[in-house]
């Protein structure tokens, strides 16, 4: 992006890193401390350009702690106490923070925020630090670090770096790192007008490559320009395909959210016929359960999230049972009235969360293994959190399908909703069926909440945001048909995402709604209608 | 079909522009004519190349095993079910397959359903009032008034169906048999040219059956009546011509004696040991 580095400096660095490695053993600690303090002191200035120079100074020093300091500085943990010492903050939650001495690494207990001054950095410095660390890391024995630093070099190579780079490529064992470095070199070659570079870059989807080729395509040299153009057009072609795949993924992912939110309702509303306006709040409870679990298990967001799956189900199911027993059982045969009562319940649950927990959103942490993307290629990466949600939605759907199709509960609940009196006459314990089914639907809503906590706000309004969509998906799919809910959710998601790039988010949403209205004219009973004499009345 | 077209045919949007339904034309033959009608549900042929003709003023009994397609046949005539193939004409002018239920009903085809369906929230009286032959467009309905004449007619029918005492009760509380009667009453109020009566005497006592028989035979002549019934005693008491349906097509047709001695009919329907019919 930016030429953040003077190349002379870079070479110097490469040199110094190698030198440091040898010098380290012989350096004396005491002499270092005074010098180190001076280095750090230089950081404690207001001007960011002065800080930048201080950082360079640290890099050029042969102090073995340099990388740690830079990392702490990058993380914003390098701070200065009122009495002029430098400390590293170990944990910066709350008002008092545990700290350690920056020079000795000795823990110093807790300090108040009032007594600490952060050594601030801005994005430019952050870039500088990253690159500095990256260049150091290019020589790291750690392959992962080398890969990251190699990626950063794309578009950043120039004359003086080109040479050491070729040598590094030759020595590199990791194919990925080598490929990246080759590309980085090739970009430099293209920029300096060498045709060879264009050939190397052909087919690469990396944006920096594209920028370089675009520039080359406008170059005065017709041979280069033609080659670059040709390479570009094949890249564009490839990009288009990848963009299509990406849109499909976006659609599936949005769809899976809709499915998850709606699937519990497909049970309570679709199968049981209860217009459960509190469905959204049950989702909300699932999300809050995740938050609660993460509070109970600090530092283990992943474990907490996994435990939230059963916990979220249970919490929502129990609340569902309470709702069923407390209210809905009295409304048998009056399905429309369940609308009124459950709306009341939804108001109560929302306000309950506001009063008991907080009107503010809560932070739910995304565990390491769920954040970031799965990189398919330079132009296509799939976000992991959404991939998990998509998978989760499918698993939940399959499980529900099994329960409704393969267990007695599935049969009994359908019998009870179709003809309650007769079902009881057949010996079906209708009350128990009601409780279990409602608990199941509610529990699934809770599961949706657990998943949604990874994508969106965990706050008192969470439920409200999903209730309308959920009903729409269930009805659009065809009431009482789980497949319908799945297909409806996924297809609405895909339609929305396909429309969005050219219509914009607002218009896309409107178009989807109009589409639903028109579609229902064609199929007045949804995507998968209940068929047959009885349904047609 | 297209939106534009339906908007341009304004008489379909605005009731008051609709022409008066033209009377059924029976000068050239039967009142109901079904030819090669076929209906299939998910591949199952409920009606299979059915041909049936009902003459004006005729009383026809239709019998046949459960699932033979009798009710489905009525569904086709009244516009509830669209056949996959074939043609259905009412008189020589009206192609019923191109009309919807209310149009067919206002042409003068009335129906009593196998499973009694009445308007449960309305009183017995109101059920009859709504069924009554009248101008059923919006504004006439809105401004319709209850005249003494209408009241008399309703009361008359109430008397006939024995529900006078219950006339202000909501129809929802009626017993099964009472609903059957109410359905018959509604049919009478409609004064249709063609009555389709699906199992009128199910759940009736012997004496009620007799009354129903009288009623239906009384109507025949002026109106055409098609009766579906499994009670052979009843069929025998009213039948002139009987059609036997089996697997969606006509198995036999003729007088009661003819068909009940037909071995095929005995085999699929009456049973060897048919004492009720005796």
């Amino acid at each position, binding site marked *: 992006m930016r030429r953040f580095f003077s190349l002379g400096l870079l070479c110097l660095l490469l040199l110094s890193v190698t030198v440091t490695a040898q010098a380290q053993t012989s350096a004396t600690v005491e002499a270092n401390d005074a010098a180190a303090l001076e280095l750090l002191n230089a950081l404690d200035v207001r001007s960011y350009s002065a800080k930048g120079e201080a950082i360079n100074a640290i890099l050029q020093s042969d102090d073995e702690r340099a990388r740690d300091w830079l990392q702490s500085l990058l993380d914003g943990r390098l701070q200065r106490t009122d009495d002029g010492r430098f400390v590293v903050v170990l944990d910066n939650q709350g008002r008092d923070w545990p700290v350690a001495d920056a020079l000795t690494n000795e823990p110093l207990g807790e300090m108040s925020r009032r007594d600490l001054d952060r050594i601030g950095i801005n994005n430019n410095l952050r870039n500088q630090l990253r690159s500095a660390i990256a260049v150091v890391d290019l020589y790291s024995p750690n392959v992962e670090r080398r890969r990251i630093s190699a990626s950063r070099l794309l578009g950043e190579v120039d004359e003086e770096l080109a040479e050491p780079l070729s040598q590094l490529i030759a020595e590199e064992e990791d194919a990925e790192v080598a490929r990246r470095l080759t590309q980085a070199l090739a970009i430099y070659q293209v920029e300096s007008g060498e045709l060879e570079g264009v050939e190397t870059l052909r087919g690469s989807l990396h944006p920096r490559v594209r920028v370089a080729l675009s520039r080359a395509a406008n170059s005065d040299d017709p041979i280069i320009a033609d080659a670059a153009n040709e390479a570009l057009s094949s890249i564009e072609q490839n990009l288009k395909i990848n963009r299509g795949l990406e849109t499909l993924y976006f659609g599936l992912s949005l769809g899976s959210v809709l499915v998850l939110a709606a699937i519990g309702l497909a049970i309570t509303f679709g199968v049981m016929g209860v217009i459960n306006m509190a469905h959204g709040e049950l989702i909300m409870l699932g999300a809050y359960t995740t938050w609660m679990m993460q509070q109970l298990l600090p530092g283990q967001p992943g474990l907490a999230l996994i435990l939230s799956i059963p916990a979220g189900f249970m919490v929502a199911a129990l609340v569902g049972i309470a709702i069923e027993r407390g209210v809905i059982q009295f409304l048998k045969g009056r399905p429309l009235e369940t609308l009124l009562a459950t709306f009341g319940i939804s108001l109560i649950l929302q306000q309950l969360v506001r009063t008991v927990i907080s009107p503010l959103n809560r932070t739910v942490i995304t565990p390491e293994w769920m954040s970031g993307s799965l990189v398919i290629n330079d132009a296509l990466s799939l976000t992991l959190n959404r991939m998990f949600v998509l998978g989760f939605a499918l698993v939940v759907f399959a499980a529900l399908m099994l329960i409704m199709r393969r267990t*007695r509960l599935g*049969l*009994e609940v*359908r*019998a009870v909703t*179709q*003809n309650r*009196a*007769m*079902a*009881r*006459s*057949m*010996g*079906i*314990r*209708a009350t128990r069926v009601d409780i279990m089914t409602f608990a199941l639907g509610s529990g699934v809503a809770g599961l949706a909440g657990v998943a949604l906590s990874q994508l969106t706000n965990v706050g008192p309004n969470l439920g409200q945001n999903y209730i309308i969509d959920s009903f729409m998906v269930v009805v659009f799919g065809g009431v009482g048909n789980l497949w319908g809910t799945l297909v409806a959710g996924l297809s609405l998601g895909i339609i929305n995402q396909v429309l969005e790039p050219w219509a914009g988010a607002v218009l896309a949403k409107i178009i989807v709604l109009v589409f639903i209205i028109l579609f229902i004219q064609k199929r007045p009973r949804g995507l998968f209608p*209940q068929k*047959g*004499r*009885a*349904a047609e009345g | 079909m297209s939106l534009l077209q339906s908007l341009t045919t304004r008489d379909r949007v605005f009731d008051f522009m609709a022409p008066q339904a033209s009377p059924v034309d029976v000068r050239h033959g039967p009142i109901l004519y079904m030819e090669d009608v076929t209906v299939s*549900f998910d591949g199952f042929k409920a009606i299979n190349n059915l041909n049936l003709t009902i003459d004006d003023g005729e009383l026809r009994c239709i019998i*046949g*095993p*459960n*699932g*033979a397609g*009798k009710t489905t046949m009525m569904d086709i005539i009244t516009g509830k079910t669209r056949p996959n193939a074939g043609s259905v004409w009412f008189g020589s002018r009206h192609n019923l397959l191109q009309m919807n239920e209310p149009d067919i009903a206002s042409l003068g085809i009335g129906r009593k359903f*196998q*499973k009694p369906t009445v308007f449960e929230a309305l009183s017995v009286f109101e059920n009859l009032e709504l069924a009554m032959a009248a101008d059923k467009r919006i504004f006439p309905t809105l401004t319709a008034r209850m005249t003494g004449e209408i009241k008399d007619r309703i009361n008359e029918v109430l008397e006939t169906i024995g529900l006078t005492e219950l006339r202000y009760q909501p129809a929802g*509380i009626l*017993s*099964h*048999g*009472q609903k*059957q*009667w109410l359905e018959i009453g509604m049919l009478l109020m409609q004064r249709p040219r063609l009555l389709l009566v699906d*199992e009128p005497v*199910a*759940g*009736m*006592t*012997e*004496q*009620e059956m007799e*009354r129903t028989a009288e009623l239906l035979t009384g109507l025949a002549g002026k109106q055409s009546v098609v009766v579906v019934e*499994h*009670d*052979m*005693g009843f069929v025998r008491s009213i039948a002139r011509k009987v059609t036997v349906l089996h697997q969606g097509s006509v198995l036999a047709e003729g007088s009661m004696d003819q068909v009940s001695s037909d071995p095929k009919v005995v085999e699929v*329907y*009456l*049973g*060897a*040991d*048919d*004492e*009720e*019919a005796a």
Partner: protein
Amino acid sequence: MLAIEKLNQFYGESHTLWDLDLDVPEGQCTCVMGRNGVGKTTLMKAIMGEVAVKSGQLRYQGEGGEIELTKKAVEARSRLGIGFVPQGRQIFPLLSVEENLRTGLAARSDGLKKIPERIYELFPVLKEMKHRRGGDLSGGQQQQLAIGRALVIEPKLLILDEPGEGIQPNIVTQIGQVIRQLIKEDGLTVLLVEQKLPFARKYADRFVIMDRGRPVAKGEIAELSNELIKQHLTV
């Protein structure tokens, strides 16, 4: 098998069953008759618990001795061995034929998971249409399904509310024969509501005529005279 005493039932404010006494002897077929709206169906529903009774007793001779039905939940009654074929069939319209039958398995004590083959033997059409939705069946097919469904629970007492309604004659005959067969072979007790005299005469052992919510005549079926019929069954 079932002894009903002083049963009173109300729909809202209207008194439908009046101090009704009725005995259903074990191993016999008792036929209840009466004009439309006298309360036959209501009585059956009261026995099943589908309508609440105001007062009176329903004493049922179950496996473990006498049981007071009024104290039992509806779903418990079928588990005690009472099978019910209601008026109007009450098929679960969106369940397949097979699923309709399977609902009856809940009430069986032996935990059977499959529909007994015998049901399909009795009503072959059900096997043929096993996968069709109950609601799509023709009226008569539904009636057969309703009877089949009640038989799935292997009842001790079978309540049939106008079972022949809408069924083709040869199958009506067959149903009558099955009832007799079950009575004879399994000691089944049958409580039958029937308007059609020939059927009642042929397959019932005893009759009860109801009028305005109470029994007005009862006896062996042979004693069902034309006079009684004229008096109570004519409008």
